[in-house]
């Protein structure tokens, strides 16, 4: 019964107004903070500095220092503090300046937040949103380019959101804040300035429902977050070769809208997964395994996968470009999958 909307730039489903991705996130946070006094934002440089990436610009002015809280560089400490506050019934939004810095907070975010409800036999939930930049920025090097979904999606009890458009950024963030469970919200520094039509007022996008980013008949491209745009780019190029690609933007990988993937692949009989995390034991391998299970008799070839190369992220721009999934590598995978290589 899930619905998927087509939102291409030509049809401004989000309304006429165009705003940046970062503004869309901020709008969701601000609207929810106006609506619910339990919601507050904390993190490094979120208040006086207006956010290292200006996502929280102006929020200190509107909500004051009791609700927009600058923290020291103590990710483990303030993540844990926010989890305690969530157990008490508040609804914290925790900004990690980058998800790459969440490794020092791995214990609270993986051992506490997702397990509190279970360990307490249902007594204490943890309505909290962790958000920040994820994935390679521009040449940030080995330690600052984590795709944490590669690690964290293994863990039950969290929802993992990876929006690919400003409209979804707002809709999914609103849903995340109202959600009663811990949500990991993964943004991309490379997309914060991307503009798009975003509805004003309340806008909610449900978790677990993929977005049909482009419809097509020959092959299904499954992706989420920034690589969705590489898929669209590849689809454009492949169209010229007469290959019609359907592109699914998963929006959330926990929960994963398996139904939409399966329905599409049953029709196209071919599937490529594009996931910017490393390949081994990744969301991409999970999608591949699921598709093989659900579409075993439908597939004309095994599910092909495009990932970041299995090495630490290099700094040099030429190496970083080779390292990341890109339209060229997606095109190659599609051709190989369709035996057109």
């Amino acid at each position, binding site marked *: 019964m899930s619905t998927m909307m087509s939102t291409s730039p030509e049809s401004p489903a989000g309304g006429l107004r165009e705003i940046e991705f970062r503004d869309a996130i901020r709008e969701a946070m601000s609207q929810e903070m106006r609506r619910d006094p339990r919601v507050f934002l904390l993190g490094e440089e979120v208040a006086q500095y207006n956010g290292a990436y200006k996502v929280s610009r102006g929020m200190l002015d509107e909500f004051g220092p009791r609700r927009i809280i600058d923290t020291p560089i103590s990710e*483990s400490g*303030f993540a844990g503090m926010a989890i305690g*506050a969530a157990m008490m019934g*508040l609804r914290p939004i925790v900004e990690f300046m980058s998800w790459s810095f969440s490794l020092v907070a791995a214990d609270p975010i993986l*051992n506490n937040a997702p397990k509190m*409800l279970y360990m307490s036999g*249902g007594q204490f939930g943890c309505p909290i949103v962790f958000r920040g930049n994820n994935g390679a920025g521009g040449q940030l090097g080995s330690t600052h380019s984590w795709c944490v979904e590669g690690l964290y999606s293994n863990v039950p009890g969290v929802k993992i959101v990876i929006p690919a458009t400003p409209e979804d950024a707002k809709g999914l963030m609103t849903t995340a804040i109202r959600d009663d*469970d811990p949500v990991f919200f993964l943004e991309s520094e490379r997309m914060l300035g991307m503009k798009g039509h975003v509805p004003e007022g309340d806008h909610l996008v449900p978790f677990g429902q993929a977005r049909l980013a482009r419809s097509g008949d020959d092959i299904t491209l499954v992706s989420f977050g920034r690589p969705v745009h590489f898929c669209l780019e590849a689809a454009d190029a492949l169209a010229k070769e007469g290959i019609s690609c359907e592109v699914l933007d998963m929006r959330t990988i926990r*929960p994963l809208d398996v139904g939409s993937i399966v*329905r599409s692949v049953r029709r196209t009989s071919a599937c490529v997964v594009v996931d910017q995390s490393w390949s081994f034991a990744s969301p991409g391998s999970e999608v591949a395994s699921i598709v093989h299970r659900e579409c075993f008799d439908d597939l004309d070839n095994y599910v092909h996968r495009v990932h970041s190369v299995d090495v630490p992220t290099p700094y040099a721009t030429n190496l970083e470009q080779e390292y990341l999934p890109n339209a060229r590598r997606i095109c190659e995978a599609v051709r190989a999958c369709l035996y057109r290589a």
Partner: protein
Amino acid sequence: MTSLSDPSAPARPFDVHGGADRPRKTYPEVAAATALGWLRQMYLIREFETRCMQSYQDKKIGGFCHVYIGQEAVAVGCTAAVERSDPIVTAYRDHGHALARGMSARACMAEMFGRIGGCAKGKGGSMHMFDRANNLFGGHGIVGAQIPLGVGLAFAAKYEDEVIKGGRSSRVALAFLGDGALNQGAFHEAMNLAGLLDIPCVVICENNGYSMGTHIARGTTMAHRLGVKGAAYGIDSYEVDGMDVLAVYHEMHEICETARRTSRPAFVDMRCYRFKGHSMSDPRKYRGREEEEHWEADDPIQKLREHLLSRAVLTEDAWKQMVKDVRAEVRDSVEWSDASPAPSSEELMRDVFMERWGPYTGSSQPEMLGGAENVPSFEAIDPSKARTPGELA
């Protein structure tokens, strides 16, 4: 209490040779009923833990089991010093805190038996005692992890009072930790946050001198003057005799009321001793019998009992009756837990997400934070749907 904030105070080596011969302060008496209540609580913990050890031998309890014998005065005195609305959180040595906070022996024992009647329906176990009605925000298994949580509890209480209700901060939170947890990064980050943001969290280091087999001086710098650990964050530090419930109550009451009034954190070096091993498998070869005997001579239960006898607040007969009652209560908790069913298979899948199963309301309707409008959740997406083939539109 000795204020440790004055760093010129003389260093005090950790007193491995027992508190019995230490000079003692005298404290004001408390009402007879109160003192008798404490005696009963402490003895309940002692008996309960004794039965735990036995049940562990009987293989009714699995996993790790850390008993609180010797430290009873700490949980009882600390919880008595604050209101029930003041949230508390502790580590895995948590049965004492649960019972002191008011959890029934049944719910606590059944949890360890892995039964549906347990406080967490048997899903948490010995290290994870949670009790929403009594504002116990859990025992926690990862050393140090509960300290930031405790700071968060105090933060939330203050936020609710001040930001949501527009009033004044009215609550303190207690965060208990073992001396071994002093060396986790979580302690450091939490202390700095509490000091910086004026968060009324009282951080209580139950300094029993050992983390597993490691004497505090082998793991912690400045073990002889732990006050520096608070001073590093501008947090007032105190040393309290954790073997004397009167001391614990009076000192902690003053410390907590100061924290409540000033909305500032505090750090407490609570000197105590665990009479048993770290967990069920610990032969205690790292310390001498002589040392143990010194501390056993300072038994907080014996001491209070004798004190009350000497003041005729307690009679030998009343004590015998108390012993009998407590034993019956503990025996009952075992029988009740034996009779409690194991959690059903559905429980395996339950409580992963709120939206799917809803919060547990089995034993008590939790007080939710007030002030906020009751925001309806966004229409739930059943995750099971996402796991089966769906429809595109």
